[in-house]
């Protein structure tokens, strides 16, 4: 059963997420659509830059720096951010930095401990794809994207804060 939510629908996923390697410089990156760990990308950047962007993604762990791929963004069709635990909120900041400061416009995918009750916040911070945890029903989780219809703050999904939009 597919467990990827993209553009607010459950879709098939044709990407493979490569695990982090002990020795990133030596990790073999297969051909085809793979999402490469940041450490491997950085260690083998020169060779990997030659890959076709349509087949290339990268993923960041919650303690990694988005600025390190600031110059490479056009080489990726997907950037994924890992939530090792759903209560680890660093990925929200990483997403906003990628979208608002580095102006990344491609697919931004939440991976790891991704659950229904966090989807709304993830969406607000710029994620547009959600690899819902394998033991959960992605169809059910879809509802989490629409928990609120009004929000106070500016964020990626709504760059103007409510105070600039309020009608009196």
């Amino acid at each position, binding site marked *: 059963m597919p467990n990827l939510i993209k553009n607010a629908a459950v879709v098939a996923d044709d990407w493979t997420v490569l695990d982090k390697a002990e020795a990133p410089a030596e990790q073999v990156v297969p051909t085809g659509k793979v999402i490469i760990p940041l450490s491997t990308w950085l260690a083998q950047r020169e060779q990997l830059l030659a890959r076709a962007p349509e087949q290339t993604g990268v993923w960041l762990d919650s303690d990694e720096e988005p600025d390190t791929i600031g110059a490479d963004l056009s080489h990726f069709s997907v950037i994924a951010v890992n939530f090792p635990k*759903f*209560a*680890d*909120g*660093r990925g*929200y*900041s*990483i997403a*906003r930095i990628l979208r*608002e*400061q580095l102006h990344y416009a491609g697919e931004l995918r939440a991976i790891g401990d991704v*659950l229904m*009750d*966090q989807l*709304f*916040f*993830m969406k*607000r*911070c710029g994620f547009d794809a959600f690899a819902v945890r394998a033991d959960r029903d992605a169809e059910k989780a879809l509802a989490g994207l629409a*928990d*609120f*219809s*009004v*929000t*106070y*703050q*500016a*964020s990626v999904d709504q*760059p*103007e*804060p*409510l*105070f*600039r939009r*309020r009608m*009196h």
Partner: protein
Amino acid sequence: MYRYDDYDRQIIKERVKQFQGQTDRFFAGELSNEEFLPLRLQNGLYVQRLAPMLRICIPYGMLSSAQLRKLSEVTRKYDKGYAHFTTRQNLQLNWPSIEDSPKILAELAEVEMHAVQTSGNCIRNTTTDQFAGVTPEEIVDPRPYCEIIRQWSTFHPEFAFLPRKFKIAVNSCPDSDRAAIQVHDIGIQIVKDAAGEIGYKVLAGGGLGRTPMIGSVIREFLPELDLLTYLEAILRVYNRYGRRDNKYKARIKILVKAMSPEAFAEKVEAEWERIKDSPSKLTLAEIERIKSFFTEPAYLALEDQPAALTDRLAENKFFNNWHHRNVAQHKKPGYAIVTLTLKKLGVPPGNITDKQMDRLAELADQYSFGEMRITHEQNVVLADVEQGKLFELWEAIKSLGFATPNLGTLTDIICCPGGDYCSLANAKSIPVAEAIQERFDNLDYLYDLGNIDLNISGCMNACGHHHVGAIGVLGVDKKGEEWYQISLGGASGQDASLGQILGPSFAREQMADVIEKILDVYVSSRNDDELFIDTFRRVGITPFKERVYAKPN
């Protein structure tokens, strides 16, 4: 007071629905305990020693009589008829059921109340001076700024899963600080620069708990419109770099200390540079809009110090005592700020019954434009009372137990729920408060002692702020027995400082005697009108140690 519009109402309505759904899924087994935990915490729902507790948000302590009536009703209907005002200016229910809590939230929403972010690792209720808007001391009313922060922090998508809880306090008085901003994660001091422009001095990294720390100034002057972008920069740095491996080292204070306040400030500035001109920058129009909710009530033109007051003060010593202690100066002639104390002997500090709530609501309607404030000392303030009606009010509150004229004195104790209610406790705290209140019930003696903050926590989480009590009491566990450690010299105001530990701890029965010895040292060492804290700072801890631990000969 701020009033909801359709947007605010919609958000709270959707929150109730969301939480109902989460609770249903929890009971249906679709959410694990571990997954439900942060969700219910962000809705103020704890599970404690005896039952769940629901912490209801009172934004910056402001409460209307209609809201209090609803709280009274909820307390009666879903709890045992009493509740507890907390040191974060909130209200806690001690015995609601988890199943009922979505219903309680729906009832609260009717009066524009909620339990959003009253717990959990997120931005909590922003607190401020309980005399905001009525004290002659302030530069400007801090409440509009608190409301702006409230809206910004409510369901902030980026900061719902911080390393640890996060508390912001705002103060606007140059010479006093009733909001204890130096012991908050962020303290905001509203200031005016040389040109008379409003701005903020920003502190970060204060906090109590296991590792108490006084906050450091990270920016001397932040212009008025930059409040939210700068807060966002601080929170982003904390969210990304605060420790997550050890919950006892996860507060921002640990990060600020580890990086040094200077390096932390630099990191914040660098982040702020990137976002300071984003749409989150405040507009004057928004500040004016929010300010329009905090306009003055319909004050009458009154004579200051009318005979109706001064005559009574002259003829009634008890009224005079109370007036001296519990009434503060108002910015308008003929008005007064009254603090009702919830510190009656035999009642746990901060506790209030449903009947008291109903009466309090009536009093607020009758004497103070239908509004009141909750203080971090767990008392209630009626902010706009006509001086000519003070005597009448005093008569009315005496029988309710709200007129104990001990404000600021030794027996106006801040005390956490402790071992009677809290599963983290090392020791009970309420019985210690009671023993001290019982021993020192002589008012003349209390007045002679002057202002002394006595704060009690049942464990090192420090909910009772013992580190910043002039006398602090901490429950400790010694081989399964309850003992109490004393610290001296703490303060939470402008001259904030952390107490020093006196020495080995004591059994509960010894506590009143030990406090008495400490007071004896103070009384015999003080110069003239010197306060306890000042005497302590002058003479140091040694004379207190010598007296308390003296071997009987």
